[in-house]
């Protein structure tokens, strides 16, 4: 069965004007997510993964940022062409977002229930009383014990895991078609992270909400994702079904990233494989592959032009010149 994607991003380009020149923050980013599907966008700091999330919601600070090309199709409408007032109706309604830091993304002077009720009333016709009842119902749905009591609690009275549940309850209160989760568990302990992952997984299965999970953690990708897009210096350098990318990575960067994770089952006496060097500044990317200066396999041709995506199998592709010439059997 082929389902229409909820979100279909095509060749998105975002530039930022900086004192050091124009930074190509997103360059030719394309991906799609179907209902009930979870796509993970993974990469190191500064690779553009959070910027991708912000551009979907029209939240790129402008100036200095600007969408200079491509389209963001949400249920067939191009979000890059909508007015702010139209976007406001979608944000928090059909597209919801949860952030990394559940403390700073909740308002400390309102109770959790009031904040969820506010979101409900912004997008649906509901009396204050009905909206508050809906807030309590949402808190119960995300597994918060004694939801009537917690709805009257202020954010500082709850633990980090509980606050992230409140954020999720708020995000889901308007039954979004798409949920963007930007590092939702990075500030949480592993046992609580496992609970939040379980909750997100259950919700997408029950409601068919599509999820874009932004993460730096390949472990989180393995635990959660159907599909994955690996980003480096503003570009998607590899994408495909999670199993294909994790088990048979095609791009040298993906391979390096996977190898450098300290694993519980690895030989502890061996050094971890490193990726030498650091991520380049987005203002001085050359014409060629941005990873080439750190890549052990780089040849002169890598610096000459952007490598194109080469299909490895089915939907799995990677942008590496070595795949074009067939020299790497990954």
């Amino acid at each position: 069965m082929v389902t229409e994607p909820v979100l279909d991003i095509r060749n998105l380009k975002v530039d930022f004007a900086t004192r050091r020149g124009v930074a190509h923050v997103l360059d030719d980013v394309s991906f799609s997510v179907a209902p009930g599907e979870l796509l993970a966008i993974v990469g190191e700091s500064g690779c553009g993964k959070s910027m991708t999330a912000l551009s979907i919601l029209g939240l790129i600070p402008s100036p200095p940022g600007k969408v200079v090309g491509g389209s963001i199709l949400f249920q067939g409408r191009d979000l890059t062409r909508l007015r702010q007032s139209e976007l406001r109706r979608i944000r928090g309604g059909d597209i919801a977002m949860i952030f990394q830091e559940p403390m700073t993304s909740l308002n400390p002077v309102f109770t959790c229930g009031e904040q969820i009720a506010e979101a409900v009333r912004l997008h649906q016709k509901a009396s204050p009383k009905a909206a508050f009842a809906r807030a309590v119902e949402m808190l119960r749905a995300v597994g918060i014990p004694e939801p009537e009591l917690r709805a009257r609690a202020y954010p500082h009275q709850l633990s980090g895991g509980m606050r992230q549940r409140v954020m999720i309850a708020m995000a889901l209160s308007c039954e979004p078609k798409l949920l963007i989760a930007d590092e939702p568990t990075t500030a949480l302990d592993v046992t609580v992270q496992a609970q939040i992952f379980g909750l997100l997984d259950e919700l997408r299965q029950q409601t068919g909400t599509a999820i874009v999970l932004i993460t730096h953690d390949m472990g989180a990708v393995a635990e959660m994702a159907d599909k994955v897009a690996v980003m480096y210096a503003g570009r998607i350098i590899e994408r495909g079904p999670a199993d294909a990318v994790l088990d048979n990575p095609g791009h040298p960067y993906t391979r390096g990233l996977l190898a450098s994770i300290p694993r519980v089952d690895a030989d502890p006496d061996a050094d971890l494989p490193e990726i030498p060097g650091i991520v380049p500044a987005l203002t001085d990317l050359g014409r060629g592959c941005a990873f080439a200066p750190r890549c052990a396999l780089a040849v002169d041709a890598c610096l000459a032009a952007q490598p194109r995506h080469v299909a490895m199998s089915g939907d799995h592709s990677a942008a590496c010149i070595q795949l074009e010439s067939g020299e790497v059997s990954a």
Partner: protein
Amino acid sequence: MNQLLSVRDLKVHFPTAHGGTVHAVDGVSFDIRRGRTLGIVGESGSGKTTTALAVMRLAPITGGEIDLDGTPISRIEGEELRRTRPRFQMVFQDPFSSLNPRDRVGRIIRQPMDLLGLGEPSGRDARVEELLAQVGLRPELKSLYPHQFSGGQRQRIGLARALATRPDLIVFDEPVSALDVAVQAQVLNLIRRLQRETGLTYLFISHDLGVVRHVCDEIAVMYLGQIVEKAPAAQIFAAPRHPYTQALIAAAPSLAPEHRRRGGGARLQGDPPSPVNLPKGCRFASRCPLAVEGCRRRMPTLRELAPGQAVACHLA
């Protein structure tokens, strides 16, 4: 026994504004042999960082003994403590706030030698260059400021500063948790190489089991101020005996095929109880899937169940 660090029944309690007591560290004991690494893992609020700070004499010690190679560092004060400080140094979690933004890197690394009067002043600049080389940075970088470095490079600078006094013990508090995974591998490899080359002893605090597995010889798992399990690294991963250790290992995200799309695989519900109003019995009982009535009445003590493996659980 060739123990470099010996901690006995360490307690760090803090008063709360409402007359209560936070039992941040509550009766912790461990030893670290010279040239080895002990890892302490646990979640936020487990007391792992406070344990590290107490060993560094940066948190007030409520009770217990800390002995560094014959020196009772938990009891000495003032000038005597200051003269002992070169022997134990620390690397902090945050590579941004732990370096003074207004000092050049050379001065940051030289400062411990200046403050503690180590070596001839004329030789200290040469030592700074030697230290930079040791942590994999070019000596001429000493004239730059911290903001001109990446996170990973800054953690190398913090390491060079810790090495400046030629310590016996380095305490690491989450040294790589602020770094991206590719950079994290560089810093972890460096930390291990330095130990191989110089025979340093490490106390290594982390929440990341993969990281701890990679650098530690022995691992202690903390929960609410106490060690619930302690064992050689290989042993604790192969055969964890405490239900909390088992849950931590199960919850750690992994690339293993059996973890794929399992939605986190949560085993534990709820959050740890408050460290102010502690339960009378086992502190883990409220979240433990195996707990029975006796667990809530009596507090378990650490018992050796296998060679080198001690567990605080009535049911283990």
